[in-house]
């Protein structure tokens, strides 16, 4: 029988969030803290801002509800919810990366899978600018052919590229 105990989580900017224990223990990190009896007062999460913590809690709540539901939530429906959840952040890359860092720190495997897969798909879709230090130029993997030509020329004729 799952206890309906409430756990308080405190974000890095001082905001407190009250959640059910079942939701909080989606995070292995928090789960271990509770087991080690460090959870009497609020659990401080110095690496997670309130904005991100709110989103993480929203994710965990949905997944806990999905597994508890009387008529089990369809796998497809949950996947669709996940897609919508993450799509918002594909526009705002900073939030996406913060979510990855939070999922890693809080050790929430499913959220880490979701966010990393999203970024992997975005890399494939050339949505990230990355700076190449040799060429002193920011580009994406769409410019692979350009890179190959430049690198080949650079190796063959180093002098032309000295900066």
């Amino acid at each position, binding site marked *: 029988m799952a206890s309906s105990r409430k756990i308080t989580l405190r974000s890095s900017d001082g905001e407190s969030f009250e959640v059910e224990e079942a939701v909080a223990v989606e995070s292995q990190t928090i789960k271990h803290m509770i087991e080690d009896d460090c959870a009497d007062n609020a659990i401080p999460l110095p690496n997670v801002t309130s904005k991100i913590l709110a989103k993480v809690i929203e994710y965990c709540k949905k997944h806990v509800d999905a597994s508890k539901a009387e008529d089990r939530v369809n796998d497809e429906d949950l996947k669709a919810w996940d897609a919508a959840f993450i799509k918002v952040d594909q526009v705002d*890359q*900073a939030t996406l*990366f*913060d979510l*990855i*860092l939070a999922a*890693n720190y809080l050790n929430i495997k499913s959220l*880490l899978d979701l966010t*990393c*897969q999203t*970024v*992997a798909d975005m*890399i*494939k879709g*050339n949505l*990230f*600018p*990355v*700076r*190449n*230090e*040799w060429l002193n130029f*920011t*580009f*994406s*993997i*769409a*410019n*692979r*052919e350009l*890179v*190959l*030509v430049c*690198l*080949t020329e*650079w*190796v*063959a004729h180093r002098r032309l590229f000295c900066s």
Partner: protein
Amino acid sequence: MRGHDRINNCLPDELMVEIFKRLDSKSTRDACSLVCKRWLGLERLTRTTLRVGASGASELFFKLLSRRFTNVKNVHVDERLSISVPVRLGRRHLNDQFADAALLFLRSHDETERSNVADVVESYSLSDGGLAVLGEGFPNLEKLSLIWCSHISNAGLRSLAESCMSLKSLDLQGCYVGDQGLAAVGECCKQLEELNLRFCEGLTDKGLVELTARCGRSLKSLGIAACAKITDASLEAVSSHCQYLETLSLDSEFMHDSGLLAVARGCHFLKVLKLHCVNVTDETLRTVGRCCLSLEELALNSFRRFTDMGLHSVGNGCKSLKSLTLTDCNFLTDSGLGIVATGCKQLTHLEVNGCHGIGTVGLESVGKSCSNLTELALLYCQRIGARALLEIGRGCKFLQALHLVDCSNIGDEAIISIAKGCINLRRLHIRRCYQIGDKAIVAVGRHCKALTDLSLRFCDRVGDRGLIAIGKGCNLTDLNVSGCHQIGDSGIIAIARGCPQLRSLDVSVLQKLGDMVMAKLGEGCPLLREIIISHCRHITDAGLSHLVKNCSMLETCHMVYCHGITSAGVATVISSCPNIKKVLVEKSKVSERTRRRAGSVISYLCVDL
């Protein structure tokens, strides 16, 4: 693209590696490794497999590879594949140069390294020294394949075994190693689960007996072929030391019953048994039927001395049998197959190849009893008639794949009953069944909505009407109508319109096809990867250019004996398709410029006309 490089500033190394692990295709990973130095270093950590051809693998080569790819667990060296080592960097087709991780190091930006390697590349074969370095460089290696590496010997194998004690799988196909090498593997690799000794002609009983004595407990899979000096004595050792053996694949005329009898009695967990042994008799099969009760897969090839009695025993005893393959077993008849069918209700795969004693009655029993059948292959079975497939159609609702080759007694009625009954059919391959015509194919198009792979090679009564029905009813990914010379433009255009997911198309030898077909294919099938239009006389450069305008994912194109295609057409294919991997064409049609752009991709027709 402008923009702030946020991804490198926000994410630490281990999370970048997590992301790279989720990149699904090799070309994307290769592309990522070229983006910046950090990604190059991190992406390398996600590589777990290396494939090396006969490219002059020297000691330095493997030292470099082990330094760069530190997480590799699986190395595959296949010296049947020769990779041209480009020593001079030039403007070649850039996609290919990075296609193989083994060549990646040649692009290193350290010029001294590069020039050293360029000098050392003389011998094109892995040596003992190279093998020793490989072992030292990858001490956590789990899986190693050395395919036809003719220059390695006992010494190399010993040094490898001593370095790679966690080895789980070893494939020495075609390597002339000796007993001492094998004994060394047995001494050091106590976790060895899989061992393949096909064509290792230097081995005798001594080596295998010693190996099984030392690491037999972990061994789960063993393969032996064409090793003249390995006899029943080795199998007897296997039976006493390899209690947990699950898979045995044996191809030998030097084995008789005694060895296999011992294995059948001693290896209680045997699941897969593949035998190609002309001197083994019914007695072995009878014992298999009595003792190998967990057997799931049985393949019997070219047995001169098996009769139905052996199969009776299998049918009565091996109740978990899922897959049965009978090749060239001429003394088996319907009775034997019937007993297997009624006894082994779990049967999902059945292949009968050239067994002239098996006819309609045997297959009828299969149709009546094996309701779980998912794959059926009847190759060169002249005696099997329409009634057999009628029963299959009635009884095997879950059939997903049907292969028929040279079954001259099978006609429209049989295929129609399959189409109506096996609604889950995904793959239908029919070759040289001359009685099958449009009526059958129309039925397939109407009933088999799950069909994705259709092949009707040289079924020359099939024409446009059949293909139009397929285009309407089935979402094909693969179509082969080579040799069905009644098919013309309208049939293929119907496919182009109805199958937008088409990836592979073979219309060779079809004399009626023209450029309109190519244009429609270009419009309708943008995912096309492979096209074979050899011997299509009326297709010209214009048709080709319409095709490649839209089919940018094309990887393979065969176009020999196409009188309408010139070097301009060939050049168009090369320049329009960035993913092109193989072009088969006459040498005279490849201009100098095209050869320079894409030399490694083009294969030439061998006959000079």
